[in-house]
């Protein structure tokens, strides 16, 4: 929960002192999220059952629900890009929730993490578009009328470049803001003040992860469907 304020001690500071690597906190918390997800995945892979129970049930609900949602929005082609979408969602969700653990910080509360993911999204949907349409992908940037094509090319380039920026800033602003509010409320009224906020922030963090997922989906839909 350090969030850039002169921070209360986070675990990553202690770990960093032990290891002597000099890395910033969000890197450690991102690794933590990766460890959690890899552990879950490896645990589940060993004992997949036809009738799911426990952890497998949770993951099947989440991933199955998201897949239905994606296919309902993009169409059958959505299944090809779904692994990317789903890993983005679950990764962000876990990183966001880690921020709620006392002594931990959300990795998404640092702008670098988000920028990395947003750039991945940007490159990926353009790659998918180019792979599907070849050189014709440029039609997506030209607009409907031939006369206005040069103007549209510039306009679309600007609005496409604005996408990773807005993705980054939205996630960063929301999560960082929540972390700061938690720290401030903890200073004001230690447990009583923060506890109700936890319920709000669990919702808020879920929604932010979902918005990132949904925007990625819409961008992919845009690059997969026929130009205008």
């Amino acid at each position: 929960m350090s969030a850039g304020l002169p921070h209360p001690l986070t675990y990553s500071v202690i770990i960093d002192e032990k290891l002597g690597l000099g890395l910033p906190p969000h890197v450690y918390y991102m690794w933590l999220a990766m460890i959690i997800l890899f552990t879950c995945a490896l645990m589940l892979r060993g004992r997949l059952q036809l009738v799911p129970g426990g952890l497998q049930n949770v993951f099947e609900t989440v991933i199955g629900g998201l897949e239905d949602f994606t296919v309902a929005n993009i169409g059958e082609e959505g299944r090809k890009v779904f692994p990317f979408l789903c890993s983005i969602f679950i990764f962000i969700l876990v990183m966001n929730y880690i921020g709620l653990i006392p002594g931990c910080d959300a990795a998404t509360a640092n702008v670098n993490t988000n920028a990395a993911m947003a750039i991945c999204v940007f490159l990926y949907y353009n790659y998918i578009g180019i792979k599907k349409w070849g050189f014709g992908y440029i039609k997506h940037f030209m607009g409907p009328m031939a006369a206005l094509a040069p103007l549209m090319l510039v306009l679309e380039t600007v609005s496409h470049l604005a996408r990773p920026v807005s993705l980054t800033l939205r996630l960063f602003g929301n999560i960082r803001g929540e972390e700061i509010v938690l720290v401030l409320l903890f200073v004001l009224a230690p447990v009583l003040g923060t506890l109700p906020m936890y319920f709000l922030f669990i919702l808020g963090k879920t929604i932010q992860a979902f918005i990132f997922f949904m925007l990625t989906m819409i961008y992919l839909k845009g690059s997969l469907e026929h130009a205008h």
Partner: protein
Amino acid sequence: MFFPKQGKHSGALELLYVSGTIGLQLVSATFIGLAMGYFLDKWLGTSPWLLVVFLILGIVAGFRDVYREAKRIQNRTGGEPGAGDPGAGK
């Protein structure tokens, strides 16, 4: 809550996403336009003309995105503005 079933993901979630999206898209398109103009000026030495042109282009692109988003919502709610809201259109 956050895994909408097929066909059941009505209003609220969609609106949440839209309200979280539109404003920032407008702002970031403007700033991207500004940055492109600034760096092109620096590169080509045509200060300040490209800055002005690209700033205006950025603003236009931002508004165009918002307009497109509004159209998308309109299509989704059945063509009529406010069709998802029973109190509207009286």
